[in-house]
Structures are given as C-alpha cells and as structure tokens.
C-alpha cells in the first residue's frame, strides 16, 4: 500500500511480535517436554498430549501426561528439598526469590510471547500485565522471605505444597501462588493445566537459570488424573487449586479428612455494577478490559453487567460504539484487543452459552469486522435484556462476553450481584463516593474495584469468597495462608467411647432428680424453642444419675437456627465498639453466675469444685479477651500502587456453624463462639451432646446481656448428624468442627457443596485452657476473610 493511500484510509498497519525466541526454545527441547523434577527436565514420557496454538491450530509441542509414579517422584524431590529450604535463613530464600523476579524480568518478552502462543490471549495483556505482575509477585515475596521470622514468629511452613492451576492466566496464577509458598519456606509441585502447560515449563527453566536448589520447585504436566494424584498424595501438606467450581468441589472432596490445608481459587463471572452517576466512558473501558480483552481477573472470564435502568440504554449504546473499535485477531499482533479462545472446547462453550442466552430472549450484539479464517476466535459480544433467572445458574460467564441486565436501586444491584453465587471480583462504578463505598462494603466478593477494574498487586490480597472458594494470595493475608500457627497444646486423654445414640425414649426414672423440672430447650433467634421433632433426651451425670432432659434437635431445628441467623444480620452491621460492649456484658453476667455454672459443670462431668471454678473463670477471661479484640482486629491499607488505596478489610463470614467437643463443655463453646461473635459473625452452636447444659445455660446469660436475636442459636442433639446438616447448608459460609478428628472427613466432604471454609481440629485432644494456642489471632483470622477494596483517587 502506498503512503498516499494510507493518508486516505489512516488504517492501522499490522504490528506483529516475532515468536522466534519462543519457538527456538520449543525446538531446543525437540518440541517434547518431560516433567521438571529435582532441578532437571526428565526425558519426555511415552504418553504425551499435544499443545497447540489456538490462534492457528498449529501444534507447538507435546508434554508428558504425568502418572502417579511421576507425581510420587516430584513429591519425593520436594520433600527432600524441604528441610534445607525451610530452615535456610530468610535472607537466603529472599535472594532466590529476588533472582526469580529478575530473571522473569529479563526474559519478559520470551515469557509473554510463549504465553500468548499457548493461550491465545493478546500479547498486549501478556506483555504489559501478566509478566510484569508475575515478576512483581516474586519481588514482593522476596521481601516476605526476608521478613518471615520476625513477622510471623513461631509459625512454620507446611512442607510440600501441591499447586494445581488452571488455563486462565497460567503464568500469573502460578507466580501468585508459588511466590508466597516459597517465601514461607514450602517446596512445591506444580501441575499446570494440560490446555496451557508451557508457562509452567518455562518457569521451570527460569528456576534453573535462577539457581534455585533442586527439588524446591517441581513441575509435573498432565491432565485431571495427574492433578488428582497430586492432590491426594499423602505427603502433600497443602493444596492450592485454581480452576472451575466443579473441579474445586472435587478437590475439596478428595482432601476431606486428610488434614491437608487447602485454598480454592475458583473465579466466576465478575459483576460490574454501573450506577447512573458513573463516568460512563470510564465504565465502558472497564468492560473492555474485564470482559473482552482477556485482561480480566478471572482470567478471560466474561462480565455480569448490572446497569442502573435509567442509563442502561445510553450505556449499551456507548458499549456498542466502543465495540466497533475493538480488533479481534492475531494475538501476537501488538494492536490486537481480542485474541483467541484457549482452545476449541472453550470456543464451543462460549458459543453454547451465547446461544442459550439468545434462545432465552437476550439481544446479542457483536461488532462487525472480519475474524481470522482459522483459529478459535469469537467476536466480543454484548448480550442485553438478560434476566438473571436465565444466567443465575451459570457458574461463570465466558469471555469475551458481557451479559447485561438492569437494576433500580443499590440494594437491588447487590442482590442481583449476589445471585451469581460466585464472588471473586466485582467492580462498582459511581462518582459518588458514599454510594460506591457502601456498595463495595455490601457486595460479596474477595476483591472490589471502585471505578476501575483488573487492578492487581502482590501486596493486595486476592481471592474468592462464597462459591469462588477461600484463601488469599498476596500481602500479609497471603503469607498467613502459607504458614501454620503453632500446633495447639494437646491433652492426653483415654480414647472416648463411641458416642451413644441419644434416645428419645422415656427413661422411666425421675428426669431431674426431684427438683423442679428444667428442660433445656433450643435457642433459636433469641427465643427458647422446643425441638421441631418434639423429642428430648436424658442427660446423665458422671454416675449415670439423671440430670435433666435436653432437646433432641434435628435437621429442621438447624434449618430454623440458620434462618434466624440469616435474619440476624444486625449483629454483623453493629459497630465493633457495640459488639465489644455486648461481649463484656456477657462476661460480666457469666461471672455473676460463676457459682451456678461451676456447680452445673461438676454435676455434668464430675469435675471437682475447683476444676469447675477454673473452667468458668477461664470462660470469663476468654470472653473478656475477645471483647478486647472486637474493635482491634483491624484491616490494612496496602501500599499497592501510587494514587490507589488498597483497603484490606477483615469481614465476617456471616453465618458460622460451631461444633463443640465433649471436653471443656463450657470453655470450648465459649472459645469458639466469642471470636466468631467478636468479628461480627452470627453463629449456630452445636454443644456437647453429653454435657449440653453449660451451653444451654449460656442462653440465659445472653438473654440478659443484650445479645441480639439471631446472633447465637444453640441446637443440642446428635453432634455428627447436626454437623452434617450445617456443613451442607448453603447459607452457612464457614464451619468450625471441633469434634473428634476421625469424624472430620464427613464434615469436610459435606462442606464441598457451597465450598464453605471449614476448620477441623481435633477438639477432644485440644487443651482449651492453654491461652497460647487456644485463643488469639489465629481464631480471629479464621473467623474473618479479607475483602480487598481498591479505591483509585486523583483527578
């Protein structure tokens, strides 16, 4: 084309990046990759899978499908490397992480081009966002490696971590999870997605170049079976998984009862809430970045667009106009906005999702313009007039698709956003700071951006909530997830006899030894309630003499208790000062009735008067302790970027289930309940079935201490049956199970449904009296999750 013609058309020319270096690297490996184990690439296996360029369909390489034996070898190498790596001075690990950061920077173009070849994302995103952020994660965590011992005293790394990461943003996800794990002193086995294994293999090469000790990072390629072998491996102490919700549930199920620590990073469609007072042009660019250009957090997921009805038409017009300028095509062209879907299967998924939406009455809009003749390309798409009932069931919206619906009020916007069940990221668009912050506080997401999208930084915690999993990467919260607190003090006890079935049959003996009958009822929504089933069971003292009857709670009582807790949101909305006052009041009233509680304990357990008094006193002290903490477990403002506040807020989960052991029948429930309440959770407590009265008597203390209805419910009955109902209940967002260790398996398995955060601890063996390990920040951290709210500022 002549210059004169260009002056007329003023079209952009092609601006391709060369893939020479990336291809030369693939060629140097003969196009065939083995695993990276113990600091070296193993010979390629016979069983390999093909890796292709989704933009051309052309084969790039093949990688080995990891067998159980391969996983064994990698885990063994990581386990061998662990003692030296974890015990090395922080400064030594810091130097290694710093070297990784520097080499990622020095190989930036190689990594960016390789990533784009492998996953079809536009080079602009790989080069300008993913690779620099990956380097940033290593630099930031070189710092944490240096500071670990001083900042996390007494905490230790887990050991071998198994990281299974998805095809979405493979290099960045890998870096986000590997950097904190390594900084803490863990060693790793990484299993990248079979759809995009090249970033992890290139990272392995970089580990070599950086001189990382052999075995500290191992990469095993393969498919879901390889991942399952890694997740189930008995020598893996922590599993970090990034992928789909469905696969996340399978990982939860596979790790249940294993004692492995777990973080799940499951993404999901990101809501983008646009208010009438938003800078609409800026919001348009937000949608471009989040939904269409593949820079999105969920890694190339789509966007659930919620637009205030009054501006919906205008906003859709602006989006359509903007879409006409988007260029879809060669991902290696530096001017491409929208690249290729990761593979043919993803392309089919996008087509099916859009077709289903259109069949449901959505109006599709796609920019005109040619698509390349070959390759997995799908044009950027806007679907308007989509009712949430049509997409509510979608686990996520595939990119490059934005699905728009309207709302009238902020409350309605929040409700529609919550309807998606997932909650990793959300963006809120309004120039009105009162409104924007209010909605940011209310929307269920691990990361909320105000008037921005896709802001990430290694210092700002990232991770999901609700159906998007749990666990945080980045910042202090991320480091806390890579370290174990000191193991709790344990008490040697004889093995407890199997819990007897609770019988609703009349015993034939006087129920309460002649005193005026006192029946412990359930506490639901601040009221004493008879159990739904209308049954009670006899509670006996240590000598078998009857002490009284307790309500035999059932599935339906748990349901009622959770419903009351859901309605009791006022407790979560109360000020921290207000919650502290209530907890002090509880302590005051408990103290006033110390004698009575001690007598009750003695009667139930046979504890001596002084032992019982000690337990009551410890319960009072523990309540004071958490009253003290209620207004002090502050969030942080992270120094993530200039002119941005990155607020890491400690938010309560909402409704928590607390399942108590038979030991310390007063102190254990208090130790679980008070941190949960102090942080603003509402709790459903299942006390010891053998010694329920200490907990049920607490209800009267709560009654007189201004604890609002719904903040605490108490359901007595068969522990394991009630725990299972709580674990399965979708409104319960976190569950602490302090029953016997051998029952934890069933609880964790049951909790996979809504992917609730669970904490199982062998409650019967814990020394509940030990202040060093049975109270403190660890409990507070487990009663909260970090929400990172990004507030850019400046004009």
């Amino acid at each position, binding site marked *: 084309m002549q*210059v*004169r013609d260009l002056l007329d058309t*003023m079209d952009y020319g092609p601006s391709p990046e060369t893939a020479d270096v990336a291809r030369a690297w693939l060629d140097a490996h003969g196009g065939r990759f083995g695993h990276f184990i113990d600091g070296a690439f193993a010979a390629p296996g016979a069983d390999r899978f093909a890796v292709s360029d989704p933009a051309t369909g052309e084969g790039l390489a093949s990688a080995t499908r990891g067998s159980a034996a391969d996983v064994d070898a990698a885990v063994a190498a990581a386990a061998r490397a662990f003692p030296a790596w974890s015990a090395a001075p922080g400064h030594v690990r810091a130097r290694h992480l710093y070297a990784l950061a520097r080499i990622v920077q020095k190989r930036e173009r190689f990594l960016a081009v390789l990533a784009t070849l492998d996953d079809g994302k536009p080079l602009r995103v790989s080069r300008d966002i993913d690779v620099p952020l990956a380097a940033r994660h290593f630099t930031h965590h070189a710092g944490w490696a240096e500071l670990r011992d001083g900042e996390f005293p007494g905490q230790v790394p887990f050991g071998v971590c198994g990281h299974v990461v998805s095809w979405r943003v493979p290099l960045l996800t890998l870096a986000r999870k590997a950097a904190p794990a390594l900084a803490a002193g863990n060693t790793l086995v990484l299993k990248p997605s079979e759809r995009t294994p090249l970033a992890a293999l290139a990272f392995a090469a970089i580990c070599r170049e950086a001189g990382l000790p052999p075995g500290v990072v191992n990469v095993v390629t393969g498919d879901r079976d390889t991942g399952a072998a890694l997740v189930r491996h008995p020598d893996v102490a922590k599993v970090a998984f990034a992928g789909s919700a469905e696969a996340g549930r399978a990982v939860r199920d596979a790790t249940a009862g294993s004692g492995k620590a777990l973080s799940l990073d499951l993404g999901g469609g990101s809501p983008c809430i646009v208010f009438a007072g938003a800078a609409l042009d800026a919001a348009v660019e937000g949608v471009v970045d989040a939904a269409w250009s593949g820079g999105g957090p969920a890694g190339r997921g789509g966007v659930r667009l919620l637009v205030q009805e009054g501006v919906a038409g205008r906003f859709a017009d602006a989006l359509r106009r903007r879409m006409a300028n988007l260029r879809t095509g060669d991902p290696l062209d530096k001017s491409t906005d929208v690249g290729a879907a990761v593979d043919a299967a993803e392309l089919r998924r996008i087509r099916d999702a859009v077709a289903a939406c259109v069949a449901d009455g959505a109006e599709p809009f796609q920019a005109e313009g040619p698509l390349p003749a070959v390759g997995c390309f799908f044009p950027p798409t806007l679907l308007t007039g989509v009712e949430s009932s049509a997409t509510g069931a979608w686990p996520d919206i595939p990119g490059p698709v934005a699905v728009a619906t309207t709302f009238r009020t902020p409350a309605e916007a929040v409700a529609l956003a919550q309807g998606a069940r997932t909650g990793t990221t959300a963006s809120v668009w309004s120039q009105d700071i009162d409104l924007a912050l209010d909605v940011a506080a209310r929307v269920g997401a691990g990361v909320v951006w105000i008037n921005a999208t896709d802001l990430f930084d290694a210092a700002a915690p990232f991770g999901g909530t609700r159906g998007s999993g749990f666990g945080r990467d980045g910042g202090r919260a991320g480091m806390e997830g890579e370290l174990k607190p000191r193991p709790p003090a344990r008490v040697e006890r004889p093995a407890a006899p199997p819990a007897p079935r609770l019988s609703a049959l009349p015993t034939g003996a006087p129920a309460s030894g002649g005193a005026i009958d006192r029946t412990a009822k359930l506490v639901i929504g601040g009221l004493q309630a008879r159990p739904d089933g209308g049954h009670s069971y006899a509670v006996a003292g240590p000598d078998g003499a009857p002490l009284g009857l307790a309500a035999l709670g059932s599935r339906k009582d748990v349901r009622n208790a959770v419903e009351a807790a859901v309605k009791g949101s006022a407790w979560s909305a109360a000020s921290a000062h207000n919650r502290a006052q209530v907890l002090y009041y509880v302590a005051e009233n408990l103290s006033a009735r110390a004698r009575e509680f001690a007598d009750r304990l003695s009667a139930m357990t046979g504890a001596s008067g002084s032992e019982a008094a000690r337990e009551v006193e410890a319960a009072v002290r523990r309540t004071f302790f958490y009253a003290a903490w209620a207004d002090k477990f502050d969030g942080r403002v992270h120094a993530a970027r200039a002119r941005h506040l990155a607020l890491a807020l400690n938010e309560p989960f909402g409704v928590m289930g607390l399942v108590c052991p038979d030991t310390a029948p007063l102190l254990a429930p208090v130790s679980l309940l008070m941190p949960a309440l102090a942080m603003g959770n509402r709790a459903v407590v299942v006390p010891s079935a053998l010694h329920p009265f200490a907990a049920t008597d607490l209800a009267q203390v709560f009654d007189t201490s201004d604890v609002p209805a719904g903040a605490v419910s108490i359901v007595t009955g068969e522990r394991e049956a009630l725990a299972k109902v709580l674990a399965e209940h979708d409104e319960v967002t976190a569950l602490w199970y302090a029953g016997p260790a051998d029952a934890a398996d069933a609880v964790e398995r049951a909790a996979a449904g809504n992917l609730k955060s669970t904490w199982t601890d062998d409650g019967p063996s814990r020394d509940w009296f030990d202040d060093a390990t049975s109270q403190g920040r660890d409990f507070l951290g487990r009663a909260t999750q970090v929400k990172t709210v990004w507030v850019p500022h400046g*004009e």
Partner: protein
Amino acid sequence: MTCIDLTTLAGDDTPGRVRRLCAKARRPLRPDLVAALGLEDRPPTVGAVCVYPTMVATAVAALDESGIPVASVATGFPAGLTPLPQRLAEIRHAVGEGAAEIDIVITRGHALLGEWGALHDEVAAMRDACGAAHMKAILGTGDLGPLRTVYKAAAVAMQAGADFIKTSTGKEDVNATLPVSLAMLRALRHYGDRTGVRVGFKPAGGVRTAKDALNWLVLMKEELGRPWLEPDLFRIGASSLLGDIERQIEHHVTGRYAAAANHAPA
C-alpha cells in the same frame, strides 16, 4: 504535518522570522523526501500558521495563494485578563488583518469559580467578534485543576459556539497531556451526540516528537473516529514537532537515522 498549526508566539518575533516560518509552512518537507513518499502531486502543507495579531499582516502576505490559513491568538493572550472590550477589539483587529482563525483564551477565573454563565457569555461575545473566522477556545487546562473542571469548561465553550477547543496556550506550567485531552474529547463527543455539531480539537504545547503526535492521532481515532484525523477537526499547536517528523520520515526513506541539521529550520 497537515494538522500542525506551525506556531511562533514569542516576544522576539519579527517580520523576518514570521516570513521564514511561512516559507516552511508552504514546504514543510524536503522535496526529495516528498518525492520518495510518492507525494509530488499532493505535497503536504501545514494546517495553519499561528502568530500574534501584529504579525498577521506579514503572515497573510507571506502565505498569499498558498491556501494556508493564518491563525492569530487574541484576547490578551496568554493570560486573557485585559478588559473585555479590548479583547474583543483585538479579535476584530486580527480578523481585519486577514486572520482566518482566532485562538481566544477563556477567563480561567470563571471556570475556577464555577461562573459558567459568565464564561458562556464572554465566549459567545468573542465568537460574535470573530465573524466568519473560525474560533478556537483555549481552556488553559494547566490552570484549571481537576479534569471535571476541564470537562465543564470545554462543554461551556462549545455551547458558546467554539469551533475548536484547545488545551493550552503553551505558556502554562503544564500544557497538553493525554489525560486532559481525553477529558476534552469526551466532552466533545457528548456535545456532538446531543447536538449533531462537530467541534474540532487542538492540543498545544508539549507535543514535540513524532511519537507524541502519533499518540494523539491514536487518541483521536479511538475516541472520535476517522473524521477527526483531518485538519478541519484536528490541529496540533507546535513549533518544534515538525523537525522531528521530518527526521523520522527521512529515516523511513533512507533507513538511516537522520540529523536535525539535515532539515531547514522553521
């Protein structure tokens, strides 16, 4: 090149200096480079020559029959704080001397104090004084502070009849920047959506390299589209930019990096 308002606005301007600038305006690119680009039959000329009112007559004479318009700053440039009658008289003087385009400056104080009505009436009076000449309204964005003030000032200037909105005089501490330009372009687009009127845009001050100029071309194309890449809707106010564009074209033609001295000074 065709969108450059080739500018000299200095206290030491003389007729000789202005005539040299006009000669450069007629032939901004060395003839051998014009030929190498295959543009002999449509050699580029700049968008306009921009001078002080007292230099308009010299420039008009020097550009005779070139088709290149003469633009004049007016209204007490660059501060714009002389009394309104004098500012209006200055516009009429420049137009009378033959200026086809007038670059006025707004009273920044009106924008800073939110006196939008006063700003509107003043700009409308200037528009009136311009008569048939095109009027470019200089917002002096470096003096205005927040982008939302820039946006509002741009909107008011357009409502008062500006044919172009222009970022700066070139004399403020901060002149044309991409964020400020983006805010103005969005105001311009919103105004066009509501009225159907196309208004032009002129960044001025600080655009010195061909690369800078490309950034603005991309911005115009992405935000407003193809029509805003022509001199009737887009100008760049610059004095040293042209030299860099010539060097880059020479590099394109020869494959060798060029020296500034290879090109006639403006």
